[in-house]
């Protein structure tokens, strides 16, 4: 029994998918983006721009490896700096993808079908960007495998009481499971592309990755079980990954990091920023490729509501941090919060409150939620706000710790920014490539939705 049979929506936002779509036309529409080969000018502009930034990325990585992390602004007491800020930011962005594909699947939220493929791809690329930072931050990134448990001539092993080792397991598991989840979802669509392709090269390429999928009922049966189980596994996984990221901070004893609320607060922040990024990317793409009747206003409205809800949870986190800094009665905790609000980085704290706390209040208005341009601008503000949040957490907690004689100010250098901007380019580049060659909307799931709608309409009549 599906959700629709009992509950009728009471608004007027229209259906989740345009009423005129048939099984065939939705497949044609989605696959034609990749197979047709005609792309709007902005596609080439973004490709070129992103390509330049990827160049910058490779250049700054090369230079970093040659010269060492002294290129960056980090020094004691602020040893983490932009590298960790960007790492957490990217990982957080990735989380919305898993949330959309896994959690909303478990909750039988049909609206996810139009955006889950894209969001999962976003997850993968974001995790790839995130993974670069801790590796490059190691100082000798070519020895990264030392953190893995493997028998070696030094007879040394990692020690598992460190959250940084948990991170290695969490991030690599997350990357691998996200990849498998994404690919599993892609296989039937790749088969569909294979059958639709007219050029030999396309047929062979899609054919190889479709692995000979033939839509057998027995296969679908196991496929659905596997997909459900993967969704069930990914849901706690995504919560655990950002919780473990938060434990990187929270298991220390540093005021501003050591707070028990960190795990759920970080998870909420991750989902918040992830939905921000989904909106930032989806709104222009649906416009460019004319997908407004597959990614509808109803989708935007729902995503905006989730942004509002998770944003408010994050604000709850800020409030608890501030309140318990006072309530602890501990001088260091109180100083940390005072310094965070009024110290040298106070401006960034209030900016983050503005971006994540105040600006999202606009989402209470339906007009804002359903106007693509306003939502798009707001989603960029949220992305900036969530970056600032990590900046404030990392830097203000470190730069004035227990010992005033070691206080210092952290200023990122050109190379800090170059690497960050470089990863944004890398991310966009991957997105652009993905849009070019793969079905950005899950074709078979949208067909399932059409089937379901037909059923519902028939039983209604």
């Amino acid at each position: 029994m599906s959700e629709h049979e009992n509950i009728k929506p009471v608004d007027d936002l229209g259906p989740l998918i345009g009423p005129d779509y048939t099984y065939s036309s939705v497949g044609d529409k989605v696959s034609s983006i990749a197979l047709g080969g005609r792309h709007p000018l902005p596609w080439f502009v973004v490709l070129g721009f992103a390509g330049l930034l990827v160049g910058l990325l490779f250049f700054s990585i090369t230079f970093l490896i040659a010269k060492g992390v002294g290129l960056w602004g980090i020094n004691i007491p602020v040893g983490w700096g932009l590298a960790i800020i960007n790492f957490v930011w990217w990982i957080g962005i990735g989380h919305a993808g898993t949330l959309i594909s896994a959690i909303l699947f478990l909750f039988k939220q049909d609206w996810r079908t139009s955006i889950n493929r894209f969001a999962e791809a976003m997850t993968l690329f974001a995790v790839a960007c995130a993974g670069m930072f801790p590796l490059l931050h190691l100082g000798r990134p070519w020895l990264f495998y030392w953190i893995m448990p493997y028998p070696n001539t030094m007879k040394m092993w990692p020690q598992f009481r460190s959250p940084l080792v948990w991170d290695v397991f969490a991030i690599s598991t997350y990357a691998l499971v996200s990849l498998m989840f994404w690919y599993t979802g892609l296989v039937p669509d790749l088969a569909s592309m294979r059958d639709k392709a007219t050029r030999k090269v396309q047929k062979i390429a899609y054919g190889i990755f479709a692995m000979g999928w033939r839509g057998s009922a027995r296969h679908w049966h196991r496929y659905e079980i596997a997909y459900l189980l993967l969704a069930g596994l990914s849901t706690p996984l995504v919560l655990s990954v950002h919780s473990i990221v938060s434990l990187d901070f929270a298991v220390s004893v540093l005021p501003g990091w050591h707070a028990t609320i960190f795990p759920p607060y970080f998870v909420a922040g991750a989902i918040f920023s992830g939905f921000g990024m989904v909106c930032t990317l989806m709104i222009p793409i649906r416009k460019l490729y004319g997908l407004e009747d597959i990614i509808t206003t109803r989708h935007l409205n729902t995503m905006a509501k989730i942004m509002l809800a998770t944003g408010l949870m994050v604000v709850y986190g800020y409030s608890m941090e501030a309140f318990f800094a006072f309530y602890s009665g501990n001088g260091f905790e109180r100083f940390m919060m005072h310094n965070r609000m009024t110290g040298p980085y106070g401006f960034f704290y209030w900016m983050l409150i503005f971006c994540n706390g105040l600006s999202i209040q606009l989402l209470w208005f339906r007009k804002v939620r359903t106007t693509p341009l306003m939502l798009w601008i707001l989603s960029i503000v949220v992305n900036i706000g969530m970056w600032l949040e990590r900046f404030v957490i990392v830097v203000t907690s470190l730069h004035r710790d227990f010992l005033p004689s070691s206080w210092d100010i952290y200023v990122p250098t050109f190379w800090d920014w170059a690497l960050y901007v470089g990863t944004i380019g890398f991310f966009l580049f991957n997105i652009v490539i993905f849009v070019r060659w793969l079905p950005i909307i899950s074709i078979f799931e949208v067909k399932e939705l059409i089937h379901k709608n037909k059923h519902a309409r028939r039983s209604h009549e």
Partner: protein
Amino acid sequence: MSETVREKKLYGLTAEFDSPEALIVAAEKIRDAGYRDIDAFTPFPVHGLTEAMGVKRSWLGWLVLLGGVLGGSGGLYLQYWINVIEFPVNIGGRPFFSWPAFVPVIFECTVLGAALFAVFGMFGLNGLPRPHHPIFDAEGFERASDDRFFIAIEAGDPCFDFEETRRFMNGLQAMAVTEVYSDDV
């Protein structure tokens, strides 16, 4: 079909439909007629189809459970062996067997094990990758991933009799009934 195709072996007979509902009705009839080596091909998962075909629920779930148990216990053993037996180091006075600190990695290993078993188990049980399958030689089969719904009775089925099965399938109100020949049977 051309003469060269005729030299290939018979894979079976397929019937083509344009809606999942019609397919399910046909599948039930075929099941009730006693055929077992049957398969349906659809562009998206159709609920109630495997039941209509008489396919048992897959035991993939148990495989995934096994993967999770193996992963989780492996993760625990890995950490225990390293931090307690092989390389015990005093870190901030914490016990060698710091179970709270082992929980995150145990959890990640559980999920990883289960997910690997789910994906590889699913494709493995499905016999994929398999680049070619006789059904691909069916006429118009490229629309099975688009908007057509096929059901096939394989020639290997004990109840299969070319003439009789063909007559039976013609009575299913399909859009088309075709015989599939392939050199891949």
